[in-house]
């Protein structure tokens, strides 16, 4: 059945990761346009080849980064292996606690910046 979506790959990523990881944050950035002139992309018509994901999920707790990335890679195995599928995948994998810490830190830096003005 042909999909009418303009972003079938992004849709597949979203539905698979949502189902398996119940992420509290899931950002999907399609960077393909930045790479469309690359030699490796010659003859590739897909507009969905390069993705950057930010995933926050409690399922990552007590797993090192390598293991977290392996989980995501295996969930997207078919999309990564398929001809004309995902060519490059950047991952940022966090637990809710790590995300909270990062946000807090970012806010602190921001307010420090304001103070020094």
């Amino acid at each position: 059945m042909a999909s009418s979506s303009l972003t079938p790959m992004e849709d597949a990523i979203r539905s698979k990761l949502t189902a398996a990881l119940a992420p509290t944050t899931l950002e999907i950035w399609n960077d393909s346009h930045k790479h469309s002139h690359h030699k490796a992309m010659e003859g590739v018509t897909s507009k969905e080849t390069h993705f950057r994901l930010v995933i926050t999920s409690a399922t990552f707790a007590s797993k090192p980064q390598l293991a977290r990335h392996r989980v995501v890679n295996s969930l997207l195995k078919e999309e990564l292996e398929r001809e004309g599928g995902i060519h490059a995948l950047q991952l940022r994998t966090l637990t809710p606690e790590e995300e909270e810490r990062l946000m807090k830190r970012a806010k602190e830096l921001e307010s420090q910046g304001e103070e020094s003005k």
Partner: protein
Amino acid sequence: MASLFRSPVFRQTTARVLRTSSQPLQRLQFQQIRRLSDETRKTIDGVLQTAPVVLFMKGTPEMPQCGFSRASVQILGLQGVDPTKFAAVNVLENDEVRQGIKEYSNWPTIPQLYVNKEFIGGCDILVSMHQSGELAELLEKEQVLAPPEETPEGGEKA
């Protein structure tokens, strides 16, 4: 940035790479491998013997053909990896290795870093380990960093 990059390191590295990795691999160049065969596994085992630190990348350290490979090389340079303990393998020159390495490590993308035959990760992992200090710790522990440079003594001999 440029001074930290320590270009002599990368010139040496490239020279070493050309010596160590391209020649033994060329024999197998025309084989098309879908699944990791014993032969491919042996080839990759052999490549991992060539140096304690091995980076599978697209292009060469001097002429990376992909931004993620470039970033990985830069990180290893910033960390001060000893060029005599480093080999880079250009997977674009060898399709057997290009496909095989993905099965070998069960990792779908390139670049891939190995230290003492152990798979460490791809570019994102390297960046995050670089930032957290874990990478420095690992490279130190595995004894693959360049010895500290001796400060040149001032003055001339009489």
